[in-house]
Every structure is written in structure tokens, then in C-alpha cells.
């Protein structure tokens, strides 16, 4: 059976058994992007943790299985790292005590679900918009 192998730049040993040296090796799947898209979520002015406030959003991927996914949270001019259940916590404008935003991000076989809620003792000052960007990888995690 033929094997197709392509080395990364700087690598010279096409017979290497260290697969990390290859850009592509036909014995293994590359991580392919099935979909890259986003959703905006607004945490309203006046939100606070004590009242149990939160905001939700979904992204439809419709892959029919739970995929690997790479989420990022854009706020201001920054793109925060998140992955799977990781929760970036972002400091927000406040009316009183410090307040942040925390995230829960998870997928089922058709959608990515995002929940954002205020953390800390403060009250959110002004509507706060988050852009949840996600790369869905064409491979099921389960």
C-alpha cells in the first residue's frame, strides 16, 4: 500500500518514524476544519451574579456528532483563548465593585452552546457584547 508523506520545512528524513516531522502522513488524519463561524452574545447592563443573570447563545454546526472545537472569545480588540470547557474570565466595566464575565462552552451533535454570566460582586455597566468564534474540527470527539 502506497504511503504519502510530506515533510515540514527544515526536515530531511522522509523515512523518519517521528510523525511530528511530517506536515502530512497518509497513515494519520489531519485535523480538518469543518466550519468556522461565530455568534454575538450580549450581557445586559445591570447584570449581576446575585440575581443569577446570564446570557446564552448557540452556533449550529449540524455535523451529526460531537466535534472537536476551538473556541475564542472576542471582547474589545482582544481574542481570548478558550477550549472545550475552559472558561476565560474577562474583566468588565462596573457600576460598583469589580465584575467579570465567565463562560461555559460545550457542544452536542448539532450545536455549540455558550453561557456567559457575571462573576464577582459588581454590577455590569452597559451592555457588553462578546463574539464567540469557533473552529469546528471534522472529527468526532466521542
Amino acid at each position, binding site marked *: *500500500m502506497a*504511503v*504519502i508523506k*510530506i*515533510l*515540514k*520545512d527544515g526536515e530531511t528524513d522522509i523515512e523518519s518514524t517521528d*510523525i*511530528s516531522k*511530517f*506536515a*502530512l*502522513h*497518509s*497513515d*494519520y*488524519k*489531519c*485535523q*480538518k*476544519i*469543518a466550519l*468556522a463561524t*461565530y455568534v454575538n452574545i450580549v450581557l445586559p447592563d445591570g447584570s449581576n*451574579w446575585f440575581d*443569577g443573570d*446570564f446570557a446564552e447563545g448557540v452556533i449550529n454546526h449540524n455535523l451529526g456528532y*460531537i466535534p*472537536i472545537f*476551538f473556541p*475564542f472569545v*472576542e471582547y474589545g*480588540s*482582544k*481574542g*481570548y*483563548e478558550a*477550549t*472545550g*470547557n*475552559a*472558561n*476565560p*474570565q*474577562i*474583566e468588565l466595566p462596573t457600576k460598583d465593585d469589580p465584575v*467579570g464575565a*465567565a463562560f*461555559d462552552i*460545550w457542544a452536542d451533535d448539532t450545536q455549540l452552546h455558550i*453561557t456567559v*454570566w457575571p462573576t464577582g460582586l459588581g454590577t455590569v455597566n452597559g451592555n457588553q457584547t462578546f463574539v464567540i*468564534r469557533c*473552529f469546528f*474540527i*471534522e*472529527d*468526532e*470527539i*466521542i
Partner: protein
Amino acid sequence: MTAPIFKIAKRGGDALTDAQKDLAFDSSLDYMIILEERTDTSDGSNNLQITHSLGYIPAFYTFFEAADGSWYRQIETGLGGSYADSTKIYIQTDEPNQRVRTVIFANSQDNSVGSGRNNASGKLRVAKPGYDAETETDLRRFRFASGGGVFKIKENREMVVTVNVDGSGYSDDQVQYAHGLGYTPQVYVFLGGVQIPIFQFIAAGMSYSVDFTVDDTYLTVRVQSGEYVFEGGEEFVFNAQILLDKID
């Protein structure tokens, strides 16, 4: 004219009939193109800044080295966390002078098609529709480029941690998997099957932690809890994708 599609099946497969997700490669899809993989050390105030100068916000991925030499990802980051802007990546580590492995992708976080960078390399390049692989220089205009490569998948693995509560009401349980690579691989770990959503748990003022570490022998997933958070017997299902690409 429709662009030709280049597919590569895995050994024993059939490129003409295999499902797209089972193929080793398919030129009709985009890839997370690796621009740079690097290891840096944070300063004495737990801060690390990496200048990328790309002019856009790139996708990136970080791992942190633990005191025992294994590597982990922060499941939950503090205020600020790790983020990128159009010139730098800003990383806050748990410890001063801590090593961080960062993968910077050429893809922008919004996966937009841009121009102006001269970073395309590699003998196999597949341009996005409407662009010429032989003349384009900005990796954002490529679906694939072999210079830095893309992540390659070794295997997916489900690992289940069952909570055992001690006499004082605390728990600390872990499961290990020998990945067999002989080096520390990149790995994605997702948590599923939690009986109580994490945000409700935190809002209730209760505490538990979930984390994972990987070294050159094992992938380890772990669940720890405070006093009487769990009754015992709860199952945490971790789903991991182990890659062939190295952290260390």
C-alpha cells in the same frame, strides 16, 4: 472551472468512498495551519508576552509546564487569561518563571482571508478558492501549506473518573492512559457528562476542580473536590484527542 479536489485516504481506506472525516487529507477543506511552535518562560510576575506582529488576531493554543515536568492546560483562567491582539499574545501563568508552549496558527480567529504577510512556505500548498497557490504569500489565503504543517491525529480516547469521597468528605481521583509515543504530545481534552453544569456549581459557591496533565508516558485526567461537594460515585467523562505533534 471547478477546482480539482485532492483526497488522501488512510492506509486501507478508499479516497473515493470514505467519509470526509475519515480521510487523511481533503483539499476541499480548510486546516489550522501551524505558523510557529515555541517554548517561552514567563517573568517573575507570571506574565509572558509573545510578539507575533501579524497585524491580525491569530488563533493560538497554550500549554503550561508543571513543576514535575508534565504539561497541562488551564481549564479555568483568572481575570484576563490568555489573549491575543493584533501584535502580541499575552499569557498569564500560574507560577513565576513557568515554561509555556504556544502554538500560533496562521489562521486569524475569525478565519478571514487577508493579505500582506509573506509567510507561506512548504512544497505542498493548497490555496483557498479564488487564489493562486503558486503566487500567494499570505497563509490566510491557503487552505493548507506544508511548511509548518497541521496537527495530525493519533487517536481519540474516552477516560472516566469516578469520584470516591474520603472520610472527611473530600475527593481526589485520577485516571491515566499510556499513550505510547515516547514524547509529550499535544492533546485536546474536553469534559462531558458532568451531572451538574459547571456554572451552576460555581454559582452555588461550591468548589471542585478538573484538570489534565500529559507527559512523555501518560495522559492523566483528575477530579478533586472540596468538603462534601460530592456524595461519591459521580462520573466525569473526559474525551481526549491525542495528537502526533509535540509539546516537548
